[in-house]
């Protein structure tokens, strides 16, 4: 997106702050700094003029202090700039987060979470900084025009000598754009690699410790660190080089004034006051020219940052990045609504036709899956690892965007499954549920008003009563980072309670077996079936689930290889037999209460 559009949209988000920033920047950095030069010129002319011999000196010095005071006041007004950063930063982060949460949940960001955080930090900041710099070209042009007028009235020839180098800088810098962009991009990537690795290693700290790999991981960090240093050095030194070139040219400008003015000063055509004015404007302009260089650099770098932020939002129009909306930095926070009632749309049948999803790059996924679920039934998806079970459920729920296929709810095609398959229509417990650093209660409710739901009922259905007794603080227990203070089973049961506390027509479970013992699982199914007319879709290879299923879908290599009731499938499907017997190798008669003393053939 064009930086101008970006700026316009962000500027109008908070006009008042934006214009205060503009006023502060223009006055304190560009306009008021012109005044001392003029005052000093008059001061020296007055001093060197034999007639007055410094009679008005005190007036000029008072004026100097007055202008300085005015500038200090405008600097205070300029606090609008960092405040604008805060406001705009909040807007950008909020817009991106919202788009990330709009995206199919299982592929919500194209990068690691650590890298995403680095973009939330650095690229957002880069955009904010740039916004405040909108005024710099205006300031520069104003400053240029004003000084030009003043200087030309004094000495046109010298003026050209001064301004020529400045024009050269602009030309030079605009030539180097591509390189700046490339350096910047490489630098950002290198930063992302570092933060990504840090996030991963702190996330995997137990595995790292258990393997004693601390030093090796840190060594890997050192390698990534070095790459970042190289990239950063290139980026900043090149930027510094461009700035230094402009400062240099300004200094050469002063030298040229000296050369050109030498004769005139001797002849009295050019006063010391004039000379002071030229020198003072040139140092001001050299700072401004440095800004021109920096500005053009930033202009290109901002493009890189904006691209990275847009990439984080994946496939939405770039304008969404800067779309206006409430950021609630003050005043009351928005109320959260309870889950709406299902009303007319209660589930009668759910049909899946030719559903396909392929993971980019790996060529794996699910291919042409079809099945129908009448209301009040239980469907179990089973298959070996990598067969596509989780992918199928994610695609159905819109957590992955299907490549093709159709999903019909009561015969009506669902165009955006991700927006559709949420409470009150469906609720889901993922394979590895994530909890957040909040209380257990907040993790289960996730913002539902507690009086609008049956929390005790959900805890009961998730078989959590006993856990609550042992947890310090019960429902108010802080569960720690990603729920780390809970056991794996407790995390899974909390997620199940989180599912049950939401009214839903369709409950979807991805593999509870790794977290629930058989008794608990039985109780869970019993309590689920106590709920009237409940429809469930379950990934499992455990017998209690398979035995209760109204239909079983056997997946292999992403395709359905068998479908039906357990008793039929055990006769007709070799894959089903393998899955069923793999667990209890020896039984022939269907009796599954095997004593461990029986010999087990190794396979």
């Amino acid at each position, binding site marked *: 997106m064009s930086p101008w559009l970006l700026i316009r949209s962000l500027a109008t988000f908070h006009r008042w702050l934006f214009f205060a920033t503009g006023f502060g920047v223009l006055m304190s950095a560009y306009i008021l700094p012109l005044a001392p030069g003029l005052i*000093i010129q008059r001061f*020296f002319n007055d001093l060197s003029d034999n007639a007055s011999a410094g009679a008005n000196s*005190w007036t000029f010095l008072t004026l100097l*202090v007055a202008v*300085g005071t005015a*500038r*200090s006041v405008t600097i*205070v007004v300029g*606090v609008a700039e*960092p405040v604008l950063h805060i406001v705009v930063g*909040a807007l950008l982060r*909020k817009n991106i987060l919202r788009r*990330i949460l709009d995206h199919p*949940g*299982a592929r919500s960001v194209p990068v690691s*979470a650590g890298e*995403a*955080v*680095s973009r939330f930090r650095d690229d957002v900041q880069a955009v904010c900084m740039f916004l405040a710099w909108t005024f710099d070209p205006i300031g520069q042009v104003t400053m240029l025009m004003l000084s030009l007028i003043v200087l030309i009235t004094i000495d046109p020839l010298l003026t050209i000598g001064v301004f020529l180098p400045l024009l050269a800088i602009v030309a030079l810098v605009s030539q180097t754009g591509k390189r700046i962009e490339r350096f910047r991009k490489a630098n950002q990537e290198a930063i992302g690699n*570092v933060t990504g690795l*840090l996030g991963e290693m702190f996330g995997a700290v137990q595995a790292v*410790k*258990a393997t004693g*790999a601390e030093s*090796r991981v*840190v060594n*890997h960090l050192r390698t990534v*660190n070095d790459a970042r*240093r190289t990239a950063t*050095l290139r980026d900043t*030194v090149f930027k510094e080089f461009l700035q*230094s070139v402009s*400062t240099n040219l300004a200094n050469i400008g002063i030298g040229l004034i000296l050369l050109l003015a030498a*004769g005139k000063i*001797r002849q009295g055509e050019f006063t010391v006051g004039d000379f002071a004015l030229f020198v003072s404007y040139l140092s001001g302009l050299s700072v401004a020219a440095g800004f021109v260089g920096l500005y053009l650099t930033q202009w290109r770098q901002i493009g890189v940052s904006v691209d990275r932020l847009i990439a984080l939002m994946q496939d939405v129009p770039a304008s969404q990045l800067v779309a206006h909306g409430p950021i609630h*930095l003050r005043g009351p926070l928005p109320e959260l609504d309870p889950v709406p009632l299902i009303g007319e749309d209660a589930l009668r049948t759910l049909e899946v036709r030719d559903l396909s999803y392929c993971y980019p790059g790996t060529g794996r996924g699910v291919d042409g899956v079809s099945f129908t679920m009448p209301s009040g039934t239980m469907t179990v998806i089973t*298959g*070996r*690892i990598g067969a596509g079970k989780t992918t199928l459920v994610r695609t159905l*729920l819109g*957590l992955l965007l299907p490549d093709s296929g159709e999903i019909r709810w009561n015969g009506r095609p669902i165009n955006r499954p991700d927006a559709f398959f949420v409470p009150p229509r469906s609720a889901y417990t*993922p394979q590895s549920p*994530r*909890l957040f*650093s909040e209380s257990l209660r907040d993790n289960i409710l996730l913002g539902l008003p507690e009086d609008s739901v049956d929390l005790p009922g959900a805890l009961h259905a998730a078989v959590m009563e006993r*856990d609550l007794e042992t947890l310090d603080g019960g429902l108010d227990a802080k569960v720690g980072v*990603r729920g780390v203070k809970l056991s*794996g089973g407790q*995390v899974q049961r909390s997620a199940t309670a989180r599912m049950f506390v939401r009214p839903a027509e369709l409950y979807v479970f991805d*593999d509870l*077996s790794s977290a*629930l*013992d*058989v008794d*608990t699982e039985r109780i869970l199914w019993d309590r689920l079936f106590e709920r009237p007319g409940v429809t469930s879709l379950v990934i499992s290879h455990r017998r209690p689930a398979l035995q209760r299923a109204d239909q079983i879908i056997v997946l292999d290599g992403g395709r359905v290889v068998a479908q039906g009731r357990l008793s039929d499938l055990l006769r007709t499907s070799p894959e089903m037999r393998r*899955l069923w017997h793999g667990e*209890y190798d020896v039984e022939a008669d269907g009796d599954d*209460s095997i004593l461990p003393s029986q010999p*087990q053939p190794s*396979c």
Partner: protein
Amino acid sequence: MGASPRDYWRLLADYLKPQRGRATLLALLLLTGTGFQLVSPLVLRQFIDRALEGEPLRILLLIAGLYIGFAILIQVIKLFETWTAEYVGWTATNNLRADLAQHVLDLDMSFHNQHTPGSLIERVDGDVFLLGNFFSRFIINVLGNLLLTIGVIVLLTRVDWRIGLTIGLFAAITIAAMMAFGRFTTERFAASRQSHADLMGFLEERISGTEDIRSTGATAYVMRRNDEFAREYSRKQTSAVLLSTFSFSTSQLLAVLGMAVSLGVGTVLYRDGETTLGTVFVIFQFTQLLMQPVEEISRQLRDFQQATASIGRVRALQRIEPAITDGPGEPLQPGPLAVDFDHVTFGYGADEPVLRDITFHLGPRRVLGVVGRTGSGKSTITRLLCRFYDPGHGSIRLGNVDLRDCALADIRDRVALVTQEIQLFRATVRDNLTLFDHSIPNERIIDALHRLGLEEWHASLPEGLDTMLDSGGGGVSAGEAQLLAFTRVFLRDPDFVILDEASSRLDPATEAQLERAIDALLAGRTAIVIAHRLATIERADEVLVMANGRIVEHGDRVSLANDSNSRFAELIRSGHDLVSSAEGKR
């Protein structure tokens, strides 16, 4: 969260010493650059006075050429200085980053249970980033600018002591005012950075949990939490920038006052005929030149305020000592190890004990199956064995050596833990399997993959072992990830193996495939196996039944199974699957 002078000194000494040569070069560059800056106005004074006196044009042109030469030289030095400063700064902060990361990894699990990866990234990367300037420039720059200030004042004093005194006074007042502001702004910036770290931690956690957020329809709630975190940061940051802007504005006002007063003194002297016009001009030039270092010092001080906040946080992090540290390093005997738990009682933090009075012995080469309901303390036993935590009472011995007497590296070298939770790195398959151990040859890795039935998976990798894996394991199923965790253990050849629900994510058919590999892994090794599947417990020589943190039964597996009164037999009768799962998988 302040930092004492000793903290600054420690950091500088630790991280600049290894780069002594470059740091010295940097100091030289800065000082020469400063020196040349003092010369330029003097050149200008010469020019004005000589021009007014009507010296020959040749000399004037020479002076002008000299000025240009100096200007270019200053810029070249400055460029060189920037490169050196950045290099020194980045080398120092990168080392600090790595050391901090190492330190954080060495901290106890109880620390990690309380800090989000996002907030740790912010502390190891964000805070350290702000220190870059501190390392590369702060001391030298402040020193350099102080020298410049003193140089200017000395030169002005030589012109006239009254001017020198006036300007010196103003410079001192300005710097003192900045220091006074500094103390308060530091505190505010520290608070602001903490709330920024909290915001980033919040974002990281939510971005990792989008599947849960979307499917529960909790988007609106997460957005509101975002508002709350953003609001907190906004408050803290606004308060910090308000104060720092006010401080900047004051310094600017003081500078102008200084210039006006010195020009006033100059005027009086000129009128009294005590000085030339060129000298008044040089007073003007010098006071302008003085604004630069004073501004620079106050800018550095503002940076320094932020850096102080960061140093405080970095030092605070460094000061957290792991409670679990190396013992005297008593060596473990080679070969399979016995394990003894001796009246071990343990609870996480101040919570209820999770283990109560656990005592058992497991001989070398024996395999122990641990069963019991979820929450009964099974995984905690394995965590204590890896010495992630120390028992509150009692002791644990590995091959008759108390774990607290061993070097941690020895324990973790000999004990391997496989849980059902596996984290993948955004790195090559090889690095993911060896955890960055480059000494393991390819053949061994490929061999291990084959033994675990991952030939096909290996063959499907476009660039073999060099294929990059996505973080979070995109494209690798949870079951495959578990097999990769097994591969990690195979490559390490440990003497003691702990499988904590390690195959629970696998379907029965794949698990059956894995049986042979597990047999090979357990052969000749001591092992503790927690599993809910019959086949896995089948390997156990002994079984230990846990309930509510206590051992309720321990004995030979076959005899317990055959004793119809045993808890174990009861468990077998009550369920198809043996036990339960799932104490924490992390």
